[in-house]
């Protein structure tokens, strides 16, 4: 290897050519709104990875962007709807699922997806969540779980680990956290999966698989929050957190859901936990309508 002095390079005469502008397009750009970017997420946040997997899954499942609706609530992951170049809705805090139920019932042809965080879906909208799962409304719910309310400054939420330190629990969290896949399965969801943001390909395949199913589908995505949760719990930088995922993740499909509890030091059991078939809300309503019409004809 020889060093070249810059004076030598300047003397070389370049032939005059036309300037061709090469636009490098990001592989996910076809589904994103370029004018809304750059995004607001901190460096090291896992939500962008989840969005990337979501966009790749849309391509993999051949979903028409005109038919796709993305509904988000408030929070860091509530921004996802704003960046998606489809029918996207940014709703009030906790009300992403009821808004999506309305969309679905008004126009059942739409493919309705709820993309929001744990503070939105489970904390304030927990009742909507369990009731939508019980009714088996035809929705795909992707819940980004970063164990705290990231956007508002890292307050504790219903998924914060026991002894996890946040802004509002500086001496450790005294509450037991929710086991989200188990709650969804108990409420009646037909498809329940959990992945970390490190399992990018598996997450993409899982979302693409869930697009093909009907009923209430729930995917929990465990994401690092290095700015708030990781910093207060000494989890290191974002890369350290991803390394922890690599060490602690156990892939176990159809695992007994009581084994899937999350703790600060324990293993993270990921995989597809529930995949069943059940009549959806719309099926029930149509069957009832049919019965009613038949009984009316019989009476006449």
């Amino acid at each position, binding site marked *: 290897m020889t060093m070249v002095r810059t004076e030598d390079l300047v003397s070389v005469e370049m032939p005059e050519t036309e300037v061709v502008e090469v636009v490098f397009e990001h592989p996910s750009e076809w589904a994103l709104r370029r004018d809304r970017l750059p995004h607001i997420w901190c460096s090291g946040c896992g939500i962008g990875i989840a969005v990337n997997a979501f966009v790749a899954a849309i391509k993999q499942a051949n979903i028409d962007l005109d038919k796709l609706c993305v509904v988000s609530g408030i929070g860091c992951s509530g921004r996802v709807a704003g960046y998606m170049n489809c029918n996207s809705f940014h709703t009030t805090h906790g009300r992403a699922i009821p808004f999506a139920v309305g969309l679905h019932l008004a126009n059942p042809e739409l493919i309705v997806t709820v993309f929001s965080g744990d503070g939105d879906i489970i*904390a*304030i*909208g*927990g*009742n909507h969540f*369990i*009731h939508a799962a*019980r*009714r088996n409304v035809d929705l795909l719910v992707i819940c980004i779980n970063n164990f705290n309310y990231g956007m508002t400054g890292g307050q504790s939420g*219903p998924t914060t680990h*026991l*002894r996890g330190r946040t802004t509002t629990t500086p*001496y*450790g*969290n*005294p*509450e*037991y*956290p*929710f*086991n989200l896949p*188990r*709650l969804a*399965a*108990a*409420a*009646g969801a037909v498809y329940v999966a959990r992945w970390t943001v490190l399992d990018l390909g598996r997450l993409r395949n899982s979302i693409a698989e869930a697009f093909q199913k009907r009923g209430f589908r729930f995917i929990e995505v465990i994401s690092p929050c290095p700015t708030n949760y990781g910093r207060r719990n000494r989890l290191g930088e974002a890369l350290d957190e991803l390394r922890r995922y690599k060490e602690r993740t156990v892939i176990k499909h159809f695992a007994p*859901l009581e084994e899937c509890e999350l703790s600060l030091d324990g293993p993270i059991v990921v995989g597809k936990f529930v995949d069943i078939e059940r009549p959806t*809300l719309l099926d*029930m*309503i149509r*069957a*009832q309508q049919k019965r009613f019409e038949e009984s009316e004809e019989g009476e006449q």
Partner: protein
Amino acid sequence: MARREEALEVKFWQEMPSPEQIWQDLPEELKALLPEDWQARKEWIFELWALQNGISVVISAFVQAVRQAEIDTQKLCVVSAVGCLTPVYEALKCDCFRVHQGRSVPFGIGLHLGNPSLKVAVLSDDSDILALGGNHIIHAARRNLDMLVICLHELALDGRDEQPPFNLPYLLSVCGAPYIARWTVFHWDNLRRTIAESLYKRGFRFIEVLMPTLFTEEPSELMEALNSFVGRTVVKHFASSETEGDLTGEQIVVGKFVDTEKLTFLDLMEREIFSQFA
């Protein structure tokens, strides 16, 4: 808990007794708990006991259980919300609170955290606890707050419910409640014993009371439906709530589902936070 061996049969009162007759038939334990001016409130006594649904059963079982467990009624708080069990706040001579619909559980949480020496009981029905306040109850069960929740769950017998009902013991056990039981309004004695037992437990105790409802004007049809409902119930303790707790199946499993010990919210506060300053 003793298992009831004889077959249950539902009796139907064709004629409603007079309020004076109801008062004479009331057990002494209940009379002691009733307010002094009961005679001025004849209407609700009549309503309470003449209604042929499960409300009077739940209230009387609760009163008898409080009596049996020898709970100090000065320390007992009963919270009820808008719904079928609203008369409870008039019926009992202890601290009763009637609050907004859906907010009985958070009100009880506030009472408990404000004065942990109180025994807090929430008596309400599914429209309050489940429909409107479903989020409050799953989060209270997750935190394992020290309170007793009795939920009257109305089941439609004629299949009008197009949507499947919640499997409540499973949902609450997933949320982490350490004591879960289920009875119907026809298991009065078992319900009384369970409430008396749970009044001495700690943590989030949940008792579901199934009440069948039927919209019919024909008494014989009603009796037939109720008897077939009672025939479907099977008493089985510590059954798996996931597989056997379903209400849509052929048989309805009643009994005590979960009875474990678990650190409550205040225990964890003591262990995790206050210990750091000791």
